């Protein structure tokens, strides 16, 4: 393990190969990078937008050495990145962090909005490993649901099911994805739950995992500078999201329960509401 990320942490400049519009505010950006192509589901990469910023993004797909990140516009960095075109240069370092562990024969994946991105890489791995998989994805409205087509493609495979929820009922089940998850958990057995979304959703799923005594792994997000476990900007409890995470199991989530969904550090290192 020692020094494993020394190569991966050096910044590589690479050109954007393809940009796919997912929704009004979400794009998937493809680039070539051998190291990132070795990423496991749940790992993330630091993407440098020259002269603008550098931000952590989950890897949403790997095909050969073609790698993608799926980006929602939330600020200047993501807005600039989403306006970049094929052939423009970005820098990447990573992949970083731990990853989702595949355990058992049945899995429930719960994704909220762009949080579904790392779950896509996981879902294809689970299908490969012949794990019976249900993906539940929630969004506010139909136009914000991601990966409907890709999930439909996986649906053709055996033992894979995708369920969509929208708050306004414009697509799939009307309501919250956490309600659908509870319904599933109360009627079916799952060996494990994987979650990635906003922290309110993750917290709710964590409670459900406790209630239905089901193991779970969740990917968390925090502001980060270094991504290699030294600057301390991304800590939750005693853990560094960049290095001990971003994926945490329910024992760890229990340990940080007083901060989960409640407190995060801002760019000054102040504890603020999530």
């Amino acid at each position: 393990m020692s020094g494993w990320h020394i190569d991966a942490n050096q910044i590589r400049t690479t050109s954007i190969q393809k940009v796919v519009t997912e929704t009004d505010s979400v794009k998937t950006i493809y680039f070539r990078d051998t190291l990132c192509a070795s990423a496991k589901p749940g790992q993330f990469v630091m993407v440098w937008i020259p002269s603008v910023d550098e931000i952590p993004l989950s890897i949403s797909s790997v095909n050969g050495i073609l790698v993608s990140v799926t980006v929602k516009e939330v600020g200047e960095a993501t807005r600039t990145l989403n306006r970049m075109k094929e052939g423009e240069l970005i820098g990447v370092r990573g992949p970083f962090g731990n990853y989702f562990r595949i355990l058992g024969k049945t899995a429930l994946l719960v994704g909220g909005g762009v949080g579904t991105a790392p779950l896509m890489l996981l879902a294809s791995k689970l299908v490969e490993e012949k794990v019976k998989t249900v993906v539940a994805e929630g969004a506010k409205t139909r136009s914000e649901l991601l990966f409907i087509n890709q999930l439909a493609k996986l649906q053709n495979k055996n033992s894979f099911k995708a369920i969509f929820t929208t708050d306004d009922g414009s697509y799939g089940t009307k309501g919250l994805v956490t309600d659908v998850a509870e319904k599933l958990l109360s009627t079916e057995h799952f060996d494990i739950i994987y979650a990635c979304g906003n922290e309110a959703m993750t917290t709710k799923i964590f409670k459900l995992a406790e209630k239905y005594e089901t193991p779970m792994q969740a990917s968390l997000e925090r502001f980060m500078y270094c991504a290699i476990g030294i600057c301390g900007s991304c800590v939750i409890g005693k853990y560094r999201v960049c290095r001990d995470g971003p994926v945490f199991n329910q024992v760890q989530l229990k340990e940080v329960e007083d901060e989960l969904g409640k407190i995060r550090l801002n760019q000054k290192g102040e504890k603020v509401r999530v």
Partner: protein
Amino acid sequence: MFNAENLKVKLAGLDLRNPTILASGILGITSKSLEEVAHAGAGAVTTKSVGLKPREGYTNPTVIQLECGLLNALGLPNPGIHKFSEEMRELSNLEVPLILSVYGYSAKEYGAVAKVGEESGVDAVELNLSCPHVRGVGAEIGQNPEKIKEIVREVKAQVKVPVFAKLSPNVSDIVCLAEAAVSCGVDGITAINTVRAMVIDVETARPVLSNKIGGLSGGAVKPVAVRCVYEIFEAVKVPIIGCGGIRTWKDAVEFMLAGASAIQVGSAIAFEDLAVFKSITDGIRKYLEKKNIKSVNEIVGMAHRR
């Protein structure tokens, strides 16, 4: 074992179970992460540099890895001493000494921050006189012996806990800075902070750090730091804390032979994680046994023998 009898160090009145200290700027922004470092075996821990007011760091990229070390320009992000004092108060049962790193824009600010720190229970204060990448607190203060004297005098007037001065290597003569600090009663010298440096990406033809210039740490600066410690040891009587590229027990021993009573570890955590404290202390212990030396204190400055 990171608390063997032969590893114990007395540092300006602080009792350290071993000579390894978490360097400032690494992880020390919450009480829980400082506790984790203590559990991992450090002999003492230093907080991130804290000022009077909250401060946002720079836009990323702020930390870049090079073949020879790390280059950073974080920009002193910190929640300000008043908020941070809550974190320090939570550390009243910490198993090792807690050192507060302080920065300021004036002697008065250094003094005020140190005072709140002492009231919140820190065991010592380290003056960051050398941040290489923030205007007004770094080079301008750290290169001027008169400024250093003014700050040390003010902080010593405000607090009773030991005060260490962390010096910049980005000067023509680091010894005169150490002498300036000692002349005003500083209790120890930390040497060195990072070395001003820069990296440009050739594809985009742009500096990579958003701040363009940052501080180099890690293996590349080690020989510079060893030289600084060696020179300072010849000139002053107060203990020296060695810092700069220490990753293995051998590095640590080298600094101690040059004159460091204790050593700080920072960038190496990126490569070795928190286990680095245990591996360094284990190695020092074995070295002492092999050389038949009773206490780690005996090797301090040994390279100066004539």
